């Protein structure tokens, strides 16, 4: 069913560094999978192992039902667009596009037809005769994408495809790549450290940290149900607030799978309706509460059952305002509409919107 399958794939380099640690990953036909993580998390190494540019130390890599561990890159029929485009500097754009086709022993007419099709789709017609060094960043990117889709490979790999483009180009290219990929109906793996890129382009995202895949989920699920503290803190801007608290009292979950719970948080007693799984924790357990900056709602400063804090810094972000709240040494980020009038030094009371409180246990895993 899955076109790319990684089964307990490990990569250990000669110096002992484990870049990828027992990674399991499946990418289906027509699915766009993003590998997302901070620098050095092993995402590029994983991509290069699928490509055949690095050998896996152990585990199985299967592409289109065939185990490819022992196949060199040129026999895997995988197309890859590189971060720095890796266009062939001594060849014209046209010859760059034709290069992958030579290996397929196609007729001249067929090669010309394929190049025409790709240059049409990516608007490369006017630059076919130019050399890579005569191209702008956006054009180079389009040629790199063109060169990867000109063939009929088993899957597509993109390494940080948009990282070198300016913001405007990035948005147009993002849409363009997404559109092209949706037509190709091939499994695609995209490596990125930019979560906006991942959230917008991917069908599913694999979040990686230190060689391990922390969570594989759809963008929506990743955002609404981060499986552990790393994913919770990594996905979403501004970052999710992670506050240490103690579970003081918890009831029995109702039929809707939720439960009323009380927490001691920053010296105050807060009640919230949370995931039913919390009922399994003993009262008195240490937990970490995750609240997204947009999950706060402001309540009357005199309210009980709310978090009281002082406004520290106010940062306008256009349509919204980022407010830093500070209380007992804990810094909380909170995003509000730009019509809310706040000044540094104000005392406010906030509450987490119903159903948007994430509870993590002592080990840092989501309770649920």
């Amino acid at each position, binding site marked *: 069913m899955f076109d790319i399958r990684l089964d307990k794939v490990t990569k250990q380099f000669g110096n002992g560094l484990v870049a990828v640690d027992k990674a399991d990953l499946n990418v289906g036909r027509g699915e766009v999978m993003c590998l997302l993580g901070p620098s050095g998390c092993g995402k590029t190494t994983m991509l290069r192992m699928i*490509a055949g540019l690095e050998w896996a130390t152990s585990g199985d890599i299967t592409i289109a039902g065939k185990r490819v561990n022992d196949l060199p890159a040129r026999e895997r029929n995988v197309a890859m667009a590189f971060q720095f485009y890796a266009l062939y500097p001594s060849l014209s754009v046209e010859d760059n596009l034709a290069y992958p086709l030579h290996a397929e022993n196609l007729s001249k007419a067929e090669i010309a037809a394929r190049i025409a099709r790709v240059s049409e789709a990516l608007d490369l017609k006017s630059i076919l005769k130019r050399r890579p060094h005569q191209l702008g960043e956006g054009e180079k990117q389009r040629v790199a994408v063109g060169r990867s889709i000109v063939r009929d490979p088993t899957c597509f790999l993109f390494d940080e495809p948009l990282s070198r483009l300016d913001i405007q180009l990035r948005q147009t290219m993002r849409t363009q790549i997404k559109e092209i990929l949706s037509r190709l109906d091939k499994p695609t793996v995209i490596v990125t450290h930019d979560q906006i890129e991942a959230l917008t382009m991917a069908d599913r995202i694999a979040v990686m940290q230190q060689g391990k895949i922390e969570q594989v989920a759809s963008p929506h699920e990743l955002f609404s149900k981060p499986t552990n503290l790393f994913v919770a803190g990594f996905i979403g801007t501004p970052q999710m607030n992670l506050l240490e608290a103690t579970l003081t009292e918890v009831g029995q979950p109702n039929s809707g799978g939720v439960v009323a719970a009380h927490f001691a948080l920053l010296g105050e007693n807060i009640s919230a309706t949370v995931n039913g799984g919390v009922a399994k924790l003993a009262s008195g357990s240490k937990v970490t509460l995750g609240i997204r900056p947009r999950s706060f709602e402001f309540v009357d400063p005199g309210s009980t059952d709310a978090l009281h804090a002082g406004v520290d810094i106010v940062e306008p972000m256009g349509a919204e305002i980022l407010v830093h709240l500070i209380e007992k040494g804990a810094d909380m980020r909170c995003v509000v509409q730009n019509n809310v009038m706040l000044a540094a030094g104000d005392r406010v009371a906030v509450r987490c919107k119903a159903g948007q409180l994430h509870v993590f246990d002592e080990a840092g895993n989501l309770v649920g």
Partner: protein
Amino acid sequence: MERAREIRAIGYAGWRRTLGAGIISLAYFFPVFYIIMTAFKTRPDALAMPIKFFFTPTFQNFYSVFLRADIQGGGTTNSGFGLYFFNSLFIGGTSVFLALIIGTSAAYGFSRFPLRGNETYLFIILTTRMLPPIIAIIPIFVLFRIFGLSGSYTGIIALYTAFNLPFSIWMAKSFFDDLDRDIEDAARMDGSSEWSVFRKICLPQVYGGLAATFVFAVILTWNEFLFALMLTGTETRTVPVAIARTIGGQVGVDWGLMSAIETLFIIPVVIVTFLLQNQLLRGVTFGTIRK
């Protein structure tokens, strides 16, 4: 900021500096100019004091390079210089060409498929370049005798090839090291064998650098005197040796003739350098300007 200003200043040095540079260049070029001038002078003009800058030019010296007037009778004798020029071109060209082919292949190997102790091998190769060549002359002379290579093209070409190899390997390796590996990976993914990666992707990127290496090696070989003197025979004599042999004799030094030979000797180097000047510039600055 400081740096930006300096970059902008290139090409806009102002007339003062340009003039200064011009005068210094003239001073350096003057001996060469003087040789070329003397080549066109008659014998009395060449020896005249003070130096004559205005004279009636003659091509007699150039004729004499190849055909020498007999001392008795009106005939001429072939001086052998045609052969010597051919020898210099043939020996120099072949050996440098060979050194580049072998050196480039070796350098690619050293750069892309490093051996255990790669650096040590490279250092050993470099040390052959550190020794003053004269140290090796006796063993080489003896070896040439034993193998009957003295006076043969094979011998001197093999020797020059060996002499140019370390330089070619080190230059070419630095060019290959500077290349973007992603481009090669891309070619591999596009179905290229290791050989096509080298031939179609890597090699075209270092042509400029190789051209520079070619020029340096050609100049070095073209000027080589010591080994040529010891190891070439009458049939394989190169121009530097032949020039040395024209000094002396019963009639003193014929400065006009000598200058004519030297002028002819300079021409091929000038042509090669001018033809490849763009590549030369790119070759020596290779790796310093990136992306």
